[in-house]
Structure formats: structure tokens, C-alpha cells
């Protein structure tokens, strides 16, 4: 089966996120003062051949742990959908 994998990578909670702060300030300057705790992350998507959705997720998590994310500074979530 072919699956679509969606990896969402965010800076670790509590880590100073100057890019998120800069965007928050810009939003505020535009009048969107109600936006708070803005954080910038990264989305990674790819197709994956696997027997089941569970197997696809296991494989994708291995990729996250090995290369796609750095556990020192980032947290991630994985979602698997039909392509």
C-alpha cells in the first residue's frame, strides 16, 4: 500500500524561538494583537510504501529519529494518510 506521511516538526517547548517572536511582533503590528505564543516549525511530507498504516508510521518515526528531527531541540508528530 502507498501512504502519504506528514511529519510536523516544532521547536522544543521552552526553547527560545526568535523567529516565532518576530512573526508574533509583525502580527501585532498589523493589528492581530490577539495572536500569542507564535512558533515556527517545519512540515515534511513524503510517499511511503508499507504493508499497513501502522507499519508506515513506524518506518516514518525511525526516519524522524535518525535524520529528520533533532531531539535536543525539536519535537515532532507523524500522521499517515491515504495518498
Amino acid at each position, binding site marked *: 500500500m502507498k501512504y502519504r506521511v506528514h511529519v510536523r516538526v516544532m521547536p522544543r517547548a521552552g526553547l527560545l524561538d*526568535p*523567529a516565532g517572536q518576530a512573526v508574533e511582533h509583525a502580527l501585532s503590528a498589523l493589528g492581530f494583537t490577539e495572536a500569542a505564543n507564535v512558533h515556527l516549525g517545519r512540515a515534511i511530507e513524503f510517499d511511503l510504501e508499507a504493508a499497513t498504516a501502522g507499519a508506515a508510521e513506524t518506518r516514518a518515526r525511525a526516519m524522524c529519529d535518525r*535524520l529528520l528531527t*533533532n531531539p535536543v*531541540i525539536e519535537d515532532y508528530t507523524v500522521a499517515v494518510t491515504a495518498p
Partner: protein
Amino acid sequence: MIRIGVISFPGSNCEGETLRAAERVGAEAVSIWHQDRDLKGADVVILPGGFSYGDYLRCGAIARFSPVMPAVRAHAEAGGGVIGICNGFQILCEAGLLPGALVRNAGLHFVSRPVDVRIERTDTIVTRAYARGAVIRIPVGHGEGRYVASAEVRAALEADQRIVFRYVQGGSLDAPGNPNGAEGDIAAICNPAGTVVGMMPHPERLADPALGSDAGLGVFQSIVTSLAGAC
């Protein structure tokens, strides 16, 4: 003669200055390609500055898996000298040879200017030629140089005196302190033995008196002194 190897990754851009600085202190400087699987007999290997693999994904994240890296890891684990400068420091952290990570500067800007760093420890492969507590002015040039680590790792680094350089407030406005918001003003760290070192500043960029200062040359002199003592 002591042999210092400098690895070129795709996107490295400081290997020329690094090789010349090694030659200046009387070492034999050898260039190592990222696809080499051995270190060409180097006693000490340097991962130079630059933008390996375009800094894609994260700085150093892809270079970490270069064919040469197993040899670098084996060299480090055998007690051999491994030094990462700027992008090289980022690669060593991504490879797990040093703890922590280097993230976007707190001010978001790429910072390219001289900084003052204090020598916190002199029994490492890169600081033997300096006096403890001495302050040297050498350049930085990075967008992702803010050192971060978990509270436990930070505490262990401090307790084990594994901070090698710390940013200090300079004596003039042209070299202000901590340029990137690094925790603990950390500019360089090492492994417990002081044989694996990562630093954000670029000593190789100020290693020739013709440039008005050779404050960074001591890093290379220290490598030679360390190895001469070991032989």
C-alpha cells in the same frame, strides 16, 4: 611531523584558511574529501566552517552521514584529536560526538564580526598555547550559533569544566559580548578528555600577522604542542 587533516564537505568554505593555518605552525596539512573512508594518516582532523549541504534540514544534519564520518568517530573514540569549527561544530553536535545543538541566533541576524572569548581551560588540544583566563579577539560568522542543551547537560558541562571558550563583553563597541544568545555564553565545548572540541569562532581567519592580529594561531600551535607532548 604532525599531520593535520581538514575535511571538505560539499559547501565547506573555510578549508583553505584552515589548511594554511596548520602549515603556519609547522604541521603537515592534508585535505580530506567527504567521500574518503580514511583520514589519510592525520593525527588531528578538523571539520571546517561553511555551509555543508546548504545547511538543508538542519546545519550539519546531512554532513553527519558522510562516508568519512565513521572514520572521524573511530578516531575520536580512540582518543584522537577532532576539532569542529563553526559548521564543523554543528556537525559534531549532530553526530553526537559533542552534546547539545546550535540553533538560530537570538537576534535572527547572521553575525559576522570579531568577538572576545575567554580561555576557560588550557588542558585541551586547542588551548595549551594560551593562558587560562586570557581573552582573545577572533571572528565569528554564523546565523545558527546559539548553543543550547538540556539543563542536565548544561550542568554536567559546567561541573566537568567542559566549556573551552566563553563570550565576554569586549572592551569596545566593535566586539560586543555574546553574539548569538548562547546559553552560559558558551562559544566552545569539549569532550571530557579535551580531545574533541567544537567552537563557533573562526581562529583560522585570524592566524596571520599580515591581517593585523594572529590571535587565532594559538589554536593551531596548541594542536602541535599537544601532539608533540603525546609522542
